[in-house]
């Protein structure tokens, strides 16, 4: 799949706004997830101190990233695992294909992982002639439908039970649309895949450098299945997703569970270090960790470095008023919401995502919600500055309009003339005092009153006379 979805931003945005089920599903999920997060934060107490601590842990790791990646790789190697550092998605996919080929594997099960979506691993494995099964319930639904995720935590948020029922029925299901019954069907079907798979592939919430371990945070248990049943396990991690020791792991896992789903801890937090120990009879016999850069290193040392603090909890997405209206697919990236608007242009270029930093009201709710204190709305403003000043990629119409405004507003004569002309120039597009045509990007979602016939100068003159 890769990080990028198809179609232009304006088309995707309109598709989102015109989809009432999606909008209803998104707003109710947002309300619920935001509510449980606030409750979980309140229950914990001293939330701000936890945010401060989480921020300093993440900053410390980024400042010493070379050391901690060195330590992690040394320790995984000592515990029998192989470590491959991949600069590009192609390198990562090539290595994983080689491992799969060397095991003569045909059946692969995966646990939910954003970074493998990012590098397009499933497509690469299909070229290798393998069956790849996504085992997270939401991801499986999307895979059966060939649909991209619309939320980091709840990837199938945009589908209702009837849509899931239809998808499962096409796959041989004969039950009702009751979510528990649908879930049991997934359990039965996927259990066969878990037992058949020669290779399991996971992402990584946080690797633990000091212990040479990879940590997964899940609720369904598929992460445990994927790392306990197949003989060979491959974990793929974004290079910044690690912590110094179990002590920091504990702090961040706590923040992740509470921020993402409002749970004190999710049902399963699993760490695994290299291969199974001598004397153990389950767990992987062969383990590979693939550490992916994919343009992350280019963010280090820049004004955007703090975005690498992200722990992928989706808190920012769950409070974003723009996401609420347009949904996840509109962002055109597997990373949606405020974090997507900051991250996607950095990982995949401004050419593809120059609209995203503008898909924000800059209300700052994202920054306030972030458990690791990434100043998200400030980074969005910084993106806008770079787009306009350095990349000169602001929309043509906007550049002309801004130039026009600069000329007009610097001359009192021109400004006065423009003010008087405005109501007449806009009248063909108006109805009952509101502009309705010509500026859909604005008027589809907000009112735009026609400029008043009374100019500011007239108003000021009258006011002066009255006094």
């Amino acid at each position, binding site marked *: 799949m890769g990080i990028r979805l198809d179609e232009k931003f304006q088309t995707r945005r309109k598709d989102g706004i015109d989809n009432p089920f999606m909008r209803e599903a998104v707003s109710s999920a947002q309300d619920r997830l935001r509510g449980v997060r606030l409750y979980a934060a309140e229950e914990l107490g*001293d939330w701000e101190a936890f945010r401060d601590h989480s921020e*300093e842990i993440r900053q410390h790791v980024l400042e010493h990233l070379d050391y901690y990646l060195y330590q992690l790789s040394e320790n995984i190697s000592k515990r029998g695992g192989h470590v491959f550092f991949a600069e590009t998605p192609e390198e990562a996919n090539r290595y994983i294909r080689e491992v799969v080929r060397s095991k003569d594997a045909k059946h692969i099960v995966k646990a939910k992982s954003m970074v493998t979506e990012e590098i397009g691993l499933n497509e690469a494995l299909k070229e290798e002639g393998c069956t790849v099964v996504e085992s997270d319930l939401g991801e499986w639904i999307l895979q059966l439908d060939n649909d991209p995720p619309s939320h980091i935590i709840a990837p199938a948020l945009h589908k209702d039970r009837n849509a899931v029922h239809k998808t499962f029925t096409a796959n041989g299901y004969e039950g009702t649309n009751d979510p528990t019954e649908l879930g049991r069907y997934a359990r039965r079907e996927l259990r066969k895949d878990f037992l058949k798979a020669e290779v399991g592939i996971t992402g990584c919430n946080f690797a633990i450098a000091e212990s040479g371990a990879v940590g997964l945070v899940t609720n369904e248990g598929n992460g445990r299945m994927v790392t306990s049943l197949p003989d060979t396990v491959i974990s793929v991690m974004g290079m910044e997703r690690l912590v110094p020791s179990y002590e920091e792991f504990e702090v961040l896992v706590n923040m992740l569970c509470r921020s993402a789903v409002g749970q004190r801890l999710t049902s399963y937090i699993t760490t695994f270090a290299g291969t199974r120990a001598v004397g153990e009879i389950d767990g992987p016999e062969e383990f590979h960790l693939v550490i992916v850069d994919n343009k992350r290193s280019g963010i280090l040392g820049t004004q955007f470095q703090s975005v690498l603090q992200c722990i992928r909890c989706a808190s920012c997405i769950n409070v974003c008023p723009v996401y609420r209206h347009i949904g996840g697919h509109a962002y055109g990236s597997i990373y949606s919401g405020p974090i997507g608007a900051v991250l996607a242009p950095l990982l995949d270029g401004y050419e593809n995502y120059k609209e995203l930093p503008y898909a924000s009201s800059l209300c700052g709710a994202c920054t306030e919600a972030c458990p690791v204190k990434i100043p998200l709305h400030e980074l969005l403003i910084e993106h806008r500055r770079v787009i306009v000043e350095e990349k000169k990629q602001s929309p043509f119409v906007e550049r002309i309009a801004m130039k026009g405004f600069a000329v007009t507003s610097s001359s009192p004569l021109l400004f006065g003339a423009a003010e008087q002309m405005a109501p007449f120039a806009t009248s063909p597009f108006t109805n009952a005092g509101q502009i309705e045509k010509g500026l859909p990007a604005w008027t589809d979602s907000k009112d735009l009153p026609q400029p008043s016939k009374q100019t500011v100068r007239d108003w000021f003159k009258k006011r002066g006379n009255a006094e």
Partner: protein
Amino acid sequence: MNPGTITNREDFLKRIANQLGRDVDLTPPKRVYKHRPQDDVLKDASDEELLETFRMVATRIHTDVIECESTHLDETLRLLIEQYGGQAIIAEHDARIKSWAPKTSASFDWWDATRPDESRALAVKADIGITIADAAFAESATIVQYAKPGKSRTISLLPHDHIAIIPKSVLVPRMTQTAKQLSALDQDGDLASPHGVNFISGPSNSADIEMNLIVGVHGPVRVAYVLVHDL
């Protein structure tokens, strides 16, 4: 254990250091943090208060808590197995509980490292898996299973029902205390922590369909904690 390979590390780390405006630095950095709120959570709670929190949170995560003394453990398990109605049971040995085996009509087997294929097959077909917790957290009603010889990663996962025996002595306020112990096993480079750790809080679940909670997705559908007061 043979060490694994490490590929492409040097250039990768160089690129990172360059971006950070320095050379690669492999001296262990000092970890100086200004904040440490995790030690204060449930700091002054008494044993009874910890138990109370554990019970309350377990209920919230759809998990039954049954309490007993070790002399009644077999009987407690027998009743629980009857209630669950399982036909096949698999359990793990543990030095802390010398001899126990519930008298039940269901077929009962031990996880046995000397019979790997058989043990794995039994875990796949068992209805109930019985484990003994290495630690438990009051705050989140979590049990901890260390993967080590003689213990299994899968008998708390594959069966429809999971019964976790929890010696009361392993109950701590929260994950902070266990994380500290695990780190202590590795911090001098000994790498003595288990190759696998499972922190389990109740049954498997998902909210992927319309945000409705489905209890029991891939892992156990029902979980019971048997808290043994005198162990």
